[in-house]
Each structure stands twice: as structure tokens, then as C-alpha cells.
């Protein structure tokens, strides 16, 4: 019983033998790379890149809920992208704009 279900999944038209599986699955790599970059100092982060990651994540999250059928897999991977992108943006903005105020206040 379990074997035939596994076989059905294995042979699914959007299953692991097809690109329809691997392209969305590999999209997790973008969020994982971003999480690995949490350790990077904020000066080295790229505003354009993080903005692109965040915007893509938000737009695709929305559209994955609008299509038929709803694609929760696509939704979750893009939500993660938007989340990591927003966090990286907040780190860089905090570093660029709020640290300056602190050092300026200390000097006074």
C-alpha cells in the first residue's frame, strides 16, 4: 500500500523526476544562502539584491495563493524569501541610519 503511494508520488507529473519539482525546491537555496549571510557584516550586504529578494518573495507569495490550485509549496518558499530579505534589509538600514545617530549623540 505504502509502496504504491510512494510510486505514485515518484511518477507524479510534477514529481521528483521533473523540473516542476526541482525548480521550486531549489528556490529554498535562496533563503538558505540569505540565512548563511546573516553572519555577514551589514556593510557587505547589497540593498538592490535584498530588495529584489524581498519583492520577489512578496509578489510570488501573493500569486501562489491566487492561482488554481493554491500552491502552498510555492507560497512557503516565497514567504521565507520575503522574511529573510526583510530581515537583511532591516539589519543594513539599522546599521546605516541608526548607528550614525547613536555615534553622533555620543559625541555631543
Amino acid at each position, binding site marked *: 500500500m505504502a509502496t504504491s503511494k510512494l510510486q505514485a508520488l515518484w511518477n507524479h507529473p510534477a514529481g521528483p523526476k*521533473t*523540473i*516542476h519539482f*526541482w*525548480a521550486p525546491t*531549489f*528556490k529554498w*537555496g*535562496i533563503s*538558505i*544562502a*540569505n540565512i*548563511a*549571510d546573516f553572519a*555577514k557584516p551589514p556593510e*557587505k*550586504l*547589497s540593498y*538592490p*539584491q535584498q*530588495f*529584489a*529578494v524581498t*519583492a*520577489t518573495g512578496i*509578489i*510570488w507569495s501573493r*500569486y501562489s495563493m*491566487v*492561482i488554481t490550485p493554491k500552491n502552498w509549496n510555492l507560497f512557503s518558499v516565497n514567504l521565507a524569501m520575503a522574511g529573510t530579505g526583510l530581515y537583511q534589509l532591516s539589519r543594513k538600514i539599522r546599521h546605516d541610519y541608526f548607528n550614525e545617530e547613536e555615534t553622533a549623540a555620543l559625541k555631543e
Partner: protein
Amino acid sequence: MSFFKTFLNSPVGPKTTHFWGPVANWGFVAAAMADIEKPPEMLSGNMTGVMCVYSALCMRFAWMVQPRNYLLLVCHASNETVQLYQLSRWAGGQGYLQLKEDKTPSP
């Protein structure tokens, strides 16, 4: 004029998600172009490497999906190109692309 109308009403046109998803992905290309002059130390090897694999997969996806999505294909072909270039710049900055020191010069 009729070409434009056909485009507007196409199954991968601007009234559909099949259009705006790929448009969002052009953001990656735009971001890479904005970062093209940045010093290699500022580039993220993690993200650039992942983008290279990801865009290759998405080119195949865009070709195989029904309906075939040429906009997505062109978007990821462009991204693949610019990310590979950035990856080569990053690798050069990391010292991966240096010649061996004991290489004999060619005659």
C-alpha cells in the same frame, strides 16, 4: 495595434500571474546590474552561486511549463549570464582564479 491587443489578452499577458511573477524576477537582474561595479569583497558568494543554479533550473522550467513562458525564459537566461559574471568576479576576488605560481611562461 492588434499585436498589442493580442499581447494584453494572451494567457501569459499582463492580466495574468504568469506575467507579473517573471516581471518580479527581473528584479534579480536589475539588482545584479546595480552591483556590477561593486568591489568583489562586497559580493555574496552564497547568493550568487545559488542564483546561478537557480536560474539554470528556471530556464528549463520556463521551457517545459504549460503554457511555455518565454518571458520567464529570457529573464532567467539574462540572470544566469549576469550572475555567472558576478560569480567569476567574486571567485577572482577570493583568489580561486589565479594562475599557479610555478607555471612556465609560454614561448
